């Protein structure tokens, strides 16, 4: 039987792992869907909402850029899709109020460091992007990636 095992890994630990019928995400090339028996692929992910069609219903994640790897699993007929994200969270874990506060804080930081050497500004801009993705994921809960 062809099956698909999805694994979402972050530096702080595995976030989610389980069987799924499909994985939907977005790379720099465009949106894509991984099904069982997908060819071996390695690619990047842009910051977006990743959707996993699990047996118990769709699960969505806010993935703040990363990589993905699709490879045949150790079992016959198994396909393994691994998402490597430096930061990722389950949509259901997102705290909207906190994300909103973080967005405002980083925006203030951006405005403040506009004339600096650029590093602080860039980090603040990344922070804003992360907060915006969280908000987008949480408010469009369940929406397709």
């Amino acid at each position: 039987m062809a099956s698909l095992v999805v694994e979402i890994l972050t530096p702080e630990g595995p976030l989610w792992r389980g069987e799924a019928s499909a994985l939907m995400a977005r790379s720099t090339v465009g949106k894509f869907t991984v099904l069982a028996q997908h060819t071996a692929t390695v690619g990047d992910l842009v910051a977006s909402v990743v959707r996993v069609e699990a047996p118990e219903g769709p699960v969505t994640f806010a993935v703040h850029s990363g990589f993905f790897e699709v490879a045949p699993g150790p079992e016959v007929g198994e396909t393994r899709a691994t998402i490597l994200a430096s930061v990722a969270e389950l949509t259901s874990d997102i705290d909207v109020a906190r994300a909103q506060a973080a967005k405002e804080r980083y925006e203030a930081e951006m405005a403040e460091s506009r004339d600096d050497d650029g590093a602080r500004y860039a980090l603040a801009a990344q922070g804003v992007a992360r907060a915006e993705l969280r908000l987008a994921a949480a408010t469009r809960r369940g929406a397709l990636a």
Partner: protein
Amino acid sequence: MAGGQERVLRRRIKSVNSTRKITKAMELIAASQIPRSTARIVANRPYRRGVERIVVAAALGDPVAAAKLIATPERVDVALVLVITGDRGLSGPYNNGALRAGERLVNELTSRGTRARLYCAGRKSAAFYRFRGVAVEEVFSGFTDRPTFEDARTIAYRLAAPYLSGEAQQILLVSTRYHSAGAQGVEVQQLLPLVVPDVAVDATAGLHGYVEFEPDVDELLASLAPRALESEIFSALLEGAAAFHTSQQRAMAAATDNADDLSQNLTRVMNRARQDSITNEIMEIVGGAEALRSGK
């Protein structure tokens, strides 16, 4: 006088005992941090392996494109050296080990005509170089006990900038790796250009044969390099934290034992001194009584 000596000894025993209390507390605190920090290394492992696998896949998939980012440059004019130590001392050989290895590395680079630019993670390395009057580009501190990925990202970001602009051709890392509870060691590792791990083909992941890349290997490696840098720095910070706690626990356990010995020895010396003074006093009394009697 004998009584005075006894008082001095009593004071020393008291001070040794209170030091022992502190070292014992530090030992227990460090011991309580070890399981947490090793658990984080274990949790981080799948991610780190995954990033390694992608580097390997990209290197095998398009060796020509990969050569630009993976091969070690023939000539390195400027190398960035990141030294990871702790923020605190009293941790046995932990800080010194990394600092010594860092110094050796810098000397070696200098003898080869490479200018080393230092970056320090942890207050101890910053203090070490400040004391020696060695210029440090940047110091990152305040997190070495419990590093977050955000810390690693900040460091990676600062290190990547001169590398990507071409100012530096190599990024090296000096850190203490945590192999197991009993084995830790300082290692020097090249972060950028990327190093393809020896385990070229992982047996469980079937990434051999034809692999598609999305986007091309060229582009993929360009975005992979900074992420791999973050990942390696984070794992080094995690292992450094675990090694720090282990080393501190061991050092403080030894200090506690030493304090025990010292306090025991001092107590013996003090008891003897007290006994001596009592014997002396008896002798004086007896001697005085004798004198009085004979003088009668």
